[in-house]
C-alpha cells in the first residue's frame, strides 16, 4: 500500500477492516472480466467514452512550437474526468453489497459525479461539502439534490474541501458497516490512491491509442494539472515506462512566494493528511494550512501519495502556475479553439503553452483537459468583470 515511502493507512482502527475488505474486493474486481466489462460498458454507453483527442491547430500555430493535442475529458457526462472513477467505485460498491455511498466534494464536481452514479446505480448518496463551498457553489449543490443526493454541510475548520473530507471520514467511521466511501481523487488511505488511479488510467490508455492512430507514435510531453492529482495520475500511468516527459502542474495561486498558493509539491513538506503520508502544506507544528487557488479543484493542502513518489523519484516534473497565468491560458484556449476549459485544466494549459513554445514544430504536447469551464463561469465573471467586453 505504498508508493516508495508515501501512502499508507493512517486511519482510526475502526476503518482498518473496511479498508481491508475494500482492498480485497478491489483486487478481485480488477481481475474479474465481468466487472471490467461492466465498467467499460458504462464508460462508453453512459459517459460517452472514448473522449475525443482534439488537435488544437489554431492554438498550436498561435503558440508557435510543438503541436498541441487536448484529451477532452470535458466531454464526459457531468463534464469532467471525475465520472470515470465514480462509475468504477459505484460498481465496486454494488459488488461489495453496499447500498449507501458517502462522498466529499469541494467545488462540487466529484459530488455531482457521485450523486450521478448513485442515481444511475440505485445507491443512496450523502455528499459532504464545506459550508463555505455550499454557498459558493449553489448550482452544483442544486444539481446534487436534483440527482437525489443529500448534501451535508461540513461546519468544522474553514468549511471547505479539507473539512468536508474530515467530516466524510468521521461519518464513514461511524457507518462503515453499510456505507461505501467514494473518494474523488488519488488521495486518502490505501487502497484509495491505487484504486482511483486504476479507474482513471483509461484517460491515458485511450490517449495512447488515439495518439498512436493520429501521429503514429507517442507524444513528446504530457501535461496535466494536479490538485489531489487523479486526472494527472490517470493520464500519466500508462506512459510511466515510456520515453515521454511528464509534467504535473500545481496551483501557484497568487504566487509561490506568497502564503496564497496550493503548490503542495513545490512548497510542501512530508506529513500525513486524510490517511496518507505525502507532501502537504502545513506549519512547523504539523497543523495543516488552508491552501489557496482560484481553482476550487486544486486548493487541496495535500496531494496523492503517488505524485509525491513520482516527484521524489524524478519521473514526473512538477511545475506551478499562478491564477493569472491560468486565466490567461483559459482565455487563449477559448478564443483560439472555442473550448472553455475548467480553471483547473487551464493550469495545465498554461504550462503546455510554455513548453510547446520551446519545442520544434515536429514535436507534440498532449494536455489533459480534465473538465469543462462552465462551472467556473461565475468565478470568471466575478474576476473579470468589465474586462471581457
Amino acid at each position, binding site marked *: 500500500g505504498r508508493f516508495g515511502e508515501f501512502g499508507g493507512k493512517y486511519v482510526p482502527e475502526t476503518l482498518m477492516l473496511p479498508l481491508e475488505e475494500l482492498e480485497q474486493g478491489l483486487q478481485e474486481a480488477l481481475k474479474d472480466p465481468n466487472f471490467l466489462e461492466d465498467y467499460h460498458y458504462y464508460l462508453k454507453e453512459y459517459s460517452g467514452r472514448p473522449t475525443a483527442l482534439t488537435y488544437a491547430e489554431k492554438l498550436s500555430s498561435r503558440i508557435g512550437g510543438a503541436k498541441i493535442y487536448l484529451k477532452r475529458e470535458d466531454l464526459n457526462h457531468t463534464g469532467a474526468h471525475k465520472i470515470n472513477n465514480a462509475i468504477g467505485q459505484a460498481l465496486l460498491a454494488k459488488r461489495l453489497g453496499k447500498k449507501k455511498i458517502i462522498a466529499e466534494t469541494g467545488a462540487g464536481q466529484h459530488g455531482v459525479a457521485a450523486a450521478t452514479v448513485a442515481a444511475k446505480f440505485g445507491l443512496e448518496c450523502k455528499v459532504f461539502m464545506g459550508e463555505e463551498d455550499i454557498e459558493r457553489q449553489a448550482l452544483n449543490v442544486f444539481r446534487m439534490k436534483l440527482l437525489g443526493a443529500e448534501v451535508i454541510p461540513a461546519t468544522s475548520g474553514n468549511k471547505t474541501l479539507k473539512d468536508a473530507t474530515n467530516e466524510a471520514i468521521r461519518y464513514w467511521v461511524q457507518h462503515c458497516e453499510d456505507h461505501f466511501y467514494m473518494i474523488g481523487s488519488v488521495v486518502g488511505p490505501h487502497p484509495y490512491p491505487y484504486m482511483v488511479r486504476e479507474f482513471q488510467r483509461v484517460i491515458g490508455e485511450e490517449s495512447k491509442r488515439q495518439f498512436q492512430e493520429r501521429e503514429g507514435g507517442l507524444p513528446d510531453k504530457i501535461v496535466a494539472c494536479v490538485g489531489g492529482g487523479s486526472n494527472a495520475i490517470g493520464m500519466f500511468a500508462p506512459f510511466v515506462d515510456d520515453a515521454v516527459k511528464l509534467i504535473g502542474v500545481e496551483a501557484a495561486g497568487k504566487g509561490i512566494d506568497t502564503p496564497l498558493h496550493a503548490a503542495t509539491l513545490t512548497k510542501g513538506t512530508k506529513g500525513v493528511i486524510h490517511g496518507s503520508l505525502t507532501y502537504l502544506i502545513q506549519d512547523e*507544528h504539523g*497543523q495543516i494550512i488552508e491552501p489557496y487557488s482560484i481553482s476550487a479543484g486544486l486548493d487541496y493542502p495535500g496531494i496523492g501519495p503517488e505524485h509525491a513518489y513520482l516527484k521524489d523519484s524524478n519521473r514526473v516534473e512538477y511545475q506551478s502556475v499562478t491564477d493569472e497565468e491560468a486565466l490567461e491560458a483559459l482565455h487563449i484556449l477559448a478564443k483560439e479553439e472555442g473550448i472553455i476549459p475548467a480553471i483547473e485544466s487551464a493550469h495545465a494549459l498554461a504550462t503546455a503553452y510554455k513548453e510547446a513554445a520551446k519545442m520544434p514544430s515536429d514535436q507534440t504536447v498532449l494536455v489533459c483537459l480534465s473538465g469543462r469551464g462552465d462551472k467556473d463561469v461565475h468565478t470568471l465573471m466575478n474576476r473579470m468583470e468589465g474586462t471581457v467586453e
Partner: protein
Amino acid sequence: MTTYLERLPKHDKLFIPFIMSGDPTPELTIKLALLLEEAGASVLELGVPYSDPLADGPVIQRASKRALAHKTTITSTMELAGEMRRRGLKIPIILFTYFNPVLQLGEESFFALAKQNQVDGLLIPDLPYEESGRIREKCSEHAITYISLVAPTSKDRMNTITEHAQGFLYCISSLGVTGVRKEFSEELYAFLDEVKKKSNVPTAVGFGISESEHIQTLKPYCDGFVVGSALIKMIEQKEKQFKVDEEKTLHELKEQIEELISPLLAER
C-alpha cells in the same frame, strides 16, 4: 524516568479522563489535571490540539479549535505536562496526538521532550497497528507506553492488537468517532468480553461514556473508562463561569465529575 506502571494508582477500575491541552487556557488545563487526579483519575489523557482531528466528534473539535487559538502545540503540550508534574501531578500522563504533529516535531525532539516532561504514554488515534511499528520501537526504547485502540470492527486484527497492547487497551465502545452517546448495542458486550479475555493489560472503554449509567452498565465488561467528550462538554459549558469565579467553578466541575464516575468511586 518513572514509568507508566509505576505511576498507576492501584484502583480496581480505571478512570481515564481526557482533556485538551490549552482548553480553555493552558493554566486551567493544569488545574483541571490536578482536579481530575483529586477526583479519582487513574490516568490522564492529555490531548494535543490538531487542525484536522478526523477521529473526533464536534465537542473535541471545538476544544481543539479553542486550544489552537491559544497557540497550543505538541511542544507546549508536553511542556504543560512537565508543569503538571512540577505542581504535583502523580498519575500517568498519556499524550493523545494525531500522527502529523509527531512527524513534524521529529522523533528525536519528541522523545526528548516526552522524557524531559515526564510524559508516560502515547496514543495516536490515526496510527493503526500496521503503521505503528517504528514508533512502538522508539517508545519502548524510551520507556514510553504505547496505547492501542481496538474496535468492534477489528475482528481478526484483535489478536495482534491485544498481543501488543501496553498500559491499557482502549476499546472503542461503538463504531464511531468520539462523542456522547445514549445507548450501547448487544454486540458491544460480546466485543468487550472478548477483548477482556484476550488482553493482558486492563481494558478501558471509551467513545460515548457520558452518564454514570453507562459506567454502571458496562462496569462488568471492562477494567476502566475513558471519559472525553462528556468532560470537555462540562468544561466548555463553564467557559465563562471560569472567568468569573474560577475556584467555585472548579469545585462544581469536580462534583459533576464525581457524580459521573460514582459507580467507580463506590468500589474504591
